[in-house]
């Protein structure tokens, strides 16, 4: 077991005042809150900071921790509590705590967890566990990142999540659960699906909670999504834009032929009805034309351009810049 440096977690010194500790915790809790932060490992950091604060805010726990810190930590960072160690500020025995004890590390459990073998006392649901009435299991919320093609066509994905459930001794333990989930076609960013009864198990005959999955779409190299609509930038040759042409355009569902109107300009949008995301109200695909130039021209083509320059000499592409 690794030793946890709670002072380092909060970025404070050993001699920090309770006020400094509270201040550091509040700042880091805001920074790493999983609902606020997009940083990688924000959730782990948030738990680490919460655990550190749970110990350092309590003078009794802090004193015990300081003592252990002095004698228990080994040079290689590993840790073993002294033989016969028993916390006097035991987590479960000491009374109510609003912190979610299920999130704390093995290190914390080893030091302060001794008092809660009889049952879980933290968290808003704690009080109900010892009662005989039935209780519905917790819902679990998970996120699932999908490639655009997967969301468009529907797919089968493996989803792993953690449920908290009581073991044989009534202690709440975290269990990793994995399901194969059939994702229906046409799921969009931010949409939820519900898997009934796949959350945490109920107690005393109560029904299981549900699993809710929120869909996230991974960025695609060509397609962008706006609500139900799909956007794609499609290059066209200058003559295709000028004269009009039938071109092949990619959609997520496959290739389609599109008529480019005569006299099109760069940035012109063509709407392909019903070629966006499927669903009750299917979206459209918007094709944004981009006039592309060949990198090299033959002498013959250059001569034609010169002729074109002469014919179109009144055209000023920079008129909007007043030059």
């Amino acid at each position: 077991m690794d030793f946890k440096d709670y002072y380092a977690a909060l970025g404070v010194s050993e001699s920090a005042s309770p006020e400094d500790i509270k201040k550091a915790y509040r700042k880091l809790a805001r920074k790493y809150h999983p609902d606020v932060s997009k940083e990688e490992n924000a959730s782990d950091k948030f738990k680490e900071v919460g655990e550190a604060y749970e110990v350092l805010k309590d003078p009794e726990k802090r004193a015990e921790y300081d003592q252990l810190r002095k004698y228990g930590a080994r040079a290689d960072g590993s840790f073993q509590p002294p033989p016969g160690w028993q916390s006097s500020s035991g987590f479960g025995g000491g009374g109510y705590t609003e912190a979610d004890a299920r999130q704390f590390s093995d290190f914390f459990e080893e030091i302060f967890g001794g008092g809660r073998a009889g049952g879980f006392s933290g968290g808003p649901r704690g009080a109900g566990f010892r009662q005989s009435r039935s209780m519905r299991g917790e819902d679990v919320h998970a996120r699932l990142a999908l490639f655009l093609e997967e969301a468009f066509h529907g797919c089968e994905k493996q989803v792993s999540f953690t449920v908290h459930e009581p073991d044989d001794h009534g202690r709440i333990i975290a269990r990793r659960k994995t399901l194969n989930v059939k994702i229906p076609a046409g799921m969009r960013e931010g949409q939820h699906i519900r898997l009934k009864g796949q959350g945490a198990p109920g107690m005393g005959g109560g029904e299981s909670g549900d699993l809710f999955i929120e869909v996230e779409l991974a960025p695609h190299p060509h397609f962008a999504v706006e609500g139900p609509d799909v956007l794609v930038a499609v290059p066209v040759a200058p003559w295709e834009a000028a004269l009009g042409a039938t071109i092949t355009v990619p959609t997520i569902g496959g290739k389609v032929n599109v008529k480019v109107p005569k006299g099109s300009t760069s940035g012109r949008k063509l709407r392909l009805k019903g070629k966006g995301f499927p669903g009750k109200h299917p979206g459209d695909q918007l094709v944004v034309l981009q006039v592309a130039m060949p990198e090299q021209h033959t002498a013959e083509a250059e001569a034609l351009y010169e002729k074109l320059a002469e014919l179109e000499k009144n055209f000023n592409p920079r008129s909007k810049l007043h030059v």
Partner: protein
Amino acid sequence: MTSKDQIVTVELTDAGSTFTLREVCERGDCHAEFVIKLVSYGIIAPVDEVPEARQWQFDVEALARLQKAMRLQRDLKLNLPGLAVSLDLLDEVQDMRREIARLNQQLRQLMDE
């Protein structure tokens, strides 16, 4: 039991289902008064805003938002006006992040031309 044994295939049951105020309270593990306050602050909204709270129905997005609001309130000790502002700003940040990702992608396409 190996981890492989725990894998089961499940079907989507109901994507468009709604929840009553009672169900939302049960699932969110909170009091009806709290949900009513969240609605009055515009933090979450029932599908149809009828005056009688007992007739309210909430969609899954509202349920997820309620739980997010509860986590923020519990962890950061926010009051209701603070919660409303935070959630609005977080929504805005998320929309902007998506917009930036989309614009970056378009920019990359343009640069490739």
